Every structure is written in structure tokens, then in C-alpha cells.
């Protein structure tokens, strides 16, 4: 008999122990390469699906209205240095207005563009005050809403404010983050005022046809 053909030795492991070993192995199936690829594909697919859903507008955009908003009275009077919170353009959209010391009236969405914490008006910070998100130290310039420090990726959406002869403060319309005032007007009011839309050069605006009746 050659040394390569040894008779099977007596198994030193008793049946109970062998069964227990088999049980333990079966209870912890190993992760295979195929499992790994499946995981990567699933995670990537999930992230891609979520990204597509966001891009398709599945999530609510703060300070954005489907319909052009109606002007809203937010304060009977706002003194220099004072501020007020209100909901605009929707009842769930938190916003704030600030009267700067020089009398300028500014309004913004009060929802930070980073992770949606509330933005506070800090009159004691900066040259003429700052808008601060305390969650992650995000800072916005009070005259423009631009990010001056911290993690917010975009400026605050603006709220166009107006003041009537009695000094009452009104919120008129909302401008999306990074959107120009003209684009915001065209987006919301071009259908209502087509002639002005043509004058402003809104994309897709046409002079309304005048229908003439036959004599």
C-alpha cells in the first residue's frame, strides 16, 4: 500500500460534536463575492432611485409655491432693527422679515438650506447683523441672503417685502434660492400679465393675439 492511500483513520470527533460544528457553520453563512456585488448593486440602485425621486420634485421645496401667492400682511409696523416671523407663501413655509437700521426691509425663508434648521436674526453679529443657523454655524448675509460662512450650499430663498402708506409690512412673493427676481416674476406671473412678460423678455412669452370680429 502506498503512502498516498492510507485507510481512513477513526474519526476522533464524536457525532454530537460534529453535528454541533455543522450547526455553528450553517448558522453563520459566509459572505460571498456574489453577495458583495449584490449589495453594491442594491445600495447604488437605492441611491440612484432616491436621487431620481428628488430630481423629479418628489420633495417639497421650501418657500416655493405652485400657484402665485397672494400678498400677506405680516406686521402692522416694523421698527429699524426689529424682526418678525411669519408663514409664506404656504402655511407650512416659515419665513422672517428684518428691518435693517438704515430702513431697508428684507425677507427670507427661515429654513436653512443646509439641513432645514430654523434661521435666526442676530443683530449683534457682523457689521449690520447676520442671519445665523445655530445647528451647524451657517451664516447668511442679511442684505442678499448669500452664504458667508458654514455649510449651507445655497443662499436663502428671498421673500419680496413691501410696505404700504400706513407702514404695514406685506410679503408679496417668494424667490427661489439662487433665482433672479426676473426669473421668479416670469415663473409666477407671466401667465397673468402676458404683455409685461413680453416687455421683461420672459422665455416663451408672446404678445397676446387680439381677436378681431368680422364686420
Amino acid at each position: 500500500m502506498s503512502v498516498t492511500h492510507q485507510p481512513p483513520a477513526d474519526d476522533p470527533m464524536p457525532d454530537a460534536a460534529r453535528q454541533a460544528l455543522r450547526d455553528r457553520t450553517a448558522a453563520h453563512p459566509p459572505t460571498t463575492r456574489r453577495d458583495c456585488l449584490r449589495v453594491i448593486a442594491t445600495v447604488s440602485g437605492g441611491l440612484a432611485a432616491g436621487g431620481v425621486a428628488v430630481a423629479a420634485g418628489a420633495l417639497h421645496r421650501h418657500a416655493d409655491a405652485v400657484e402665485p401667492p397672494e400678498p400677506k400682511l405680516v406686521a402692522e409696523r416694523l421698527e429699524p432693527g426689529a424682526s418678525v416671523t411669519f408663514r409664506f407663501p404656504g402655511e407650512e413655509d416659515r419665513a422672517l422679515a428684518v428691518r435693517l437700521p438704515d430702513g431697508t426691509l428684507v425677507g427670507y425663508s427661515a429654513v436653512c438650506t443646509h439641513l432645514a434648521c430654523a434661521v435666526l436674526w442676530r443683530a449683534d453679529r457682523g457689521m449690520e447683523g447676520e442671519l445665523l443657523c445655530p445647528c451647524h454655524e451657517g451664516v447668511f448675509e442679511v442684505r442678499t441672503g448669500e452664504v458667508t460662512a458654514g455649510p449651507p450650499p445655497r443662499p436663502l430663498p428671498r421673500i419680496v417685502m413691501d410696505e404700504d402708506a400706513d407702514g404695514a409690512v406685506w410679503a408679496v412673493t417668494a424667490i427661489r434660492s439662487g433665482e433672479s427676481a426676473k426669473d421668479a416674476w416670469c415663473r409666477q406671473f407671466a401667465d397673468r400679465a402676458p404683455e409685461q412678460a413680453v416687455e421683461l423678455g420672459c422665455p416663451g412669452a408672446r404678445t397676446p393675439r387680439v381677436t378681431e370680429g368680422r364686420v
Partner: protein
Amino acid sequence: MRAILAGTAASLLLVLAIVLGSRLLREFHAALLPYAVATVLLAFGVAYRGTVRFLSPGARRLSEADRHGCFLRRNLGRAPGSLPRAMAAYFGFQALPRAGSRARRAAYQLVLWGCVLAVLITFPLAWGWVTFTADSAAGPGYEMRIWGMELLGFDALGFFGSVMFRGLDLAAVLVVAGASYLLWRQKRDCAVHTGQRFACGLVPLVALVVVSVTGLLLPFSSLFLHGGGYRVLAIGHTASVVFTLGHIAFGTLVPRNARPRRPGPAVPGALPVVRSNGADVR
């Protein structure tokens, strides 16, 4: 098939909870989408893996043995207390056998409580369940809301507010300290104590350290760099978190040579597994 059904059911339940808890996605934030997706996959993975594990022939035989052992007269008195005992042991109120030195036990606790704190803070935020609002523009009053209802009000610029907003930093420091110690001691300890579990796996510890360090770099950027490089750091942090959650769900957490002798808690006083022939297989 049953495992896939269980995983799908767990994922759908979580998605439903996210949609309802975020008030029909109104409070859900797009920047947190990768984290939410990762938790949904985590739910699938944990349910799938748990079902596979508990339905596998080996585990089923063991659970049958557990059931059998549970109703033995000599175990009846101890059975109701075994789960609370296991929980107390894992949450550090009781020393685990084979847990090693006092420093090692402390490192375990740091990692554990750091992870618990991080999960309690980030998961509800990522799901859109928790929001922070202010009723006054000038502050400093802040409101923490859960599912749209006010939970507590606090001064955003005061000490409590700072602690609230620095909770994740604290969690990251705890995890870095504990995981670094375990990594440092890994080679020697794991060679000696094969009974150690997750601390002997390289990937989970490294992943936890990466998540924590990238997480700590975010406030560093906010506080000291005025937000410089924040976006790149945030992408790196998101990728590390998604990888870690995916690894928890689907990866190999415990190397084969460091697995426990049987599934279930290794707790002093836990029920022994007794086979029908009376043999204790522990």
C-alpha cells in the same frame, strides 16, 4: 424566499414610517436622502439576514434546543430573566465573560454608547421625524419638534443648545477613542481571546473610525475654516456612513475565527443549550 419577504416587509414598513413621520415628506430633507436610503437597506439587510440565520437548519436546531432547555424544570426559574440579563450585560451594566481587561471593557462601552447616541440623533433626523424651528426671528428660543409636534424648547445659543448641536461630535469622540484602542490592541488580544467578537474584525472598526473622523471634520470646517471644503468632507462622510450601514446589513461583521461558539448572548447565567439527549453543547 421567506427571508426576502421579511426584508421587503421591514423596508416597506420603514419607508411608510418615514413618509408618515415626515408629514408626507414635507419635513424630509433631500441632503439626508443617502442616509435614509442606507437605513432602508439596513432594515432589509438585518431582517433578511436575521431570517436566513434563524431559519437555517443549524440555527433552527439550536433554537429548538433552546426552547427545550427553556422549559426544563431546572431552567424555568431563570428563563424570564435571561433576556434582561443579556441586555444588561451588553449595555455595560454587567461584565461579559471573556471581555478582557478593564480598559478593553471601557473601550467596548465607548464604542457602544457612541454608536447608540449617534443612532438616536441621526436616524430620526435622516427620516425627517425631527425638525428644529423658531417662533421668534431674533431667537434665541428654539423648538425641537418630532412628527410635527413640539417636544422641547431651549435656548439655541445657550449651553444646552450647544450640547444639543454637539451631540454627534461627542458620539464621534467616544467612538474614535474606543475603536482606536480596540484596533491598537487587536493583534494581541484577538490572538489570545478567540471568543472576542466584533472587535476582532478589522473592517467594522476601521469603518467606525472613518465615519467618526470624517464626522468630526465637518464641525472643524464650520468652526475653523468658515465652511471651507465642507461639501467634499460631507460627501466623504456620507459615503463612509452608507458603506458602514451597508456593511452592517450585508457584510461579514465577525471573522470566522472570532465567532462565538454558538449564536446568542454570552452572558453569565444565561440558559445552557441542552439537547434532547441531555448533553450540554455550550
